[in-house]
């Protein structure tokens, strides 16, 4: 079987896969990184979004063998080693931007890429449009948008602490 060597959440790994193995299958089945989810089979839902070489991609629509030499970041690799959450994770919690949690890993990974690509800051409307590749069935998106709007302030260094949600 072919072997693919890459870095996942900062750790070098080497995995035997079939050529047809998708990145998400390798992450979930072989590396047991089950935080990345599969919610559809038509590349619509975005539950499987991870970062490959710093860009958000749907890990259900890329072959594991295409990731030779790549740096992959999943939801499991987001928090600091001491457990401190990434500002986006913290914002999702503070603003109740998740309910069942299934779309959440992909949503968070997409949101981080969205904010990173837009250092000028995003309006609520732009955030909604930027989430085109991610479906959530629980929240109605309202609190996801609020969370991302709050997180970008911290991620762009405009505030040290996350703005708190009103009680």
């Amino acid at each position, binding site marked *: 079987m072919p072997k693919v060597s890459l870095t996942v959440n900062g750790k070098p790994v080497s995995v035997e896969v079939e050529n*047809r193995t*998708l990145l998400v299958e390798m992450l979930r089945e072989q590396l047991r990184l089950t935080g990345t989810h599969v919610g559809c089979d038509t590349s619509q839902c975005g539950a499987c979004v991870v970062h490959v070489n710093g*860009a958000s*991609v*749907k890990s259900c*629509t890329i*072959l594991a063998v295409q990731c030779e030499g790549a740096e992959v970041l999943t939801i499991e690799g987001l928090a600091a080693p001491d457990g401190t959450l990434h500002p986006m994770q913290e914002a999702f919690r503070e603003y109740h931007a998740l309910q069942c949690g299934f779309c959440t890993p992909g949503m968070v990974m*997409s949101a981080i890429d969205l904010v990173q690509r837009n250092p000028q800051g995003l309006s609520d409307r732009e955030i909604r449009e930027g989430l*085109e*590749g991610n479906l959530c069935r629980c929240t109605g998106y309202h609190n996801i948008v609020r969370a991302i709007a709050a997180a970008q302030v911290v991620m762009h260094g405009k505030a040290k602490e996350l703005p708190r949600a009103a009680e």
Partner: protein
Amino acid sequence: MYEFAYHRPASVAEAAKLLAADPEAKLISGGMSLIPVLKQRLARPSALIDLGAIPDLVGISVTATTVTVKGRTTHAAVAASAEVRQAIPALAELASHIGDAQVRNRGTIGGSIAHHDPTADYPAAVLALGATVNTSRRSIAADDFFTGLFATALEPDEIVTAVDFPIPEKAAYVKFPNPASRYAMVGVFVAKGPMGVRVAVTGAGANGVFRHAAMEEALAKSWSPEALEGITTPAEHLNTDIHASREYRAHLIGVMAKRAVAKAG
């Protein structure tokens, strides 16, 4: 997915050789169209030849007259390119609305036009701007490139290496997305430039992207949304599905075209 062999050539020549040697092999660039097809088991290639390791195939260059986008350049790269935004803002704008952010991070211009999905955005730009498609063996004019639904003039072992877009005087793209898939249900690209006045319609045609002769004629006389008033699109060669009948698509072509002309200024 059915299992397949996988090759990762380092040059276009090597890729072309692999492709020529195996008629059942397929090229994979970003994979945004191909992988979903493979996952549904609707295709069974013997091998995938991945263009992902060929550095020569990535990049954007701009001259006084032409924007050249190499075949494996991602939509995100085109959308983010300051040079493209300067030279052909409509092209950058189109690229910034293809699929979703994750599709744009992987999907490539070469893959998009070689696949010629009838709902893809890029074919409208290629056709309306009168671009030239450069391949591993020749140059193909846009008017000769798209030959039908999921069909192009590419030979089985031919690889898209770059697309040259003549810089227009005015251009704009407006689309009405399918509410479910968000692919173009109707997309209209209008352009006025060295190639004349050209109007290309994607998403709607039963045979893929097409030029709209009546609109081109009207706009050549008078470049204004009002010039398109009263011009209808015959519905019989348009797609119909649960989201849009061919009559609705025909109507939307008119609306999108006017909006595109207005946007182009």
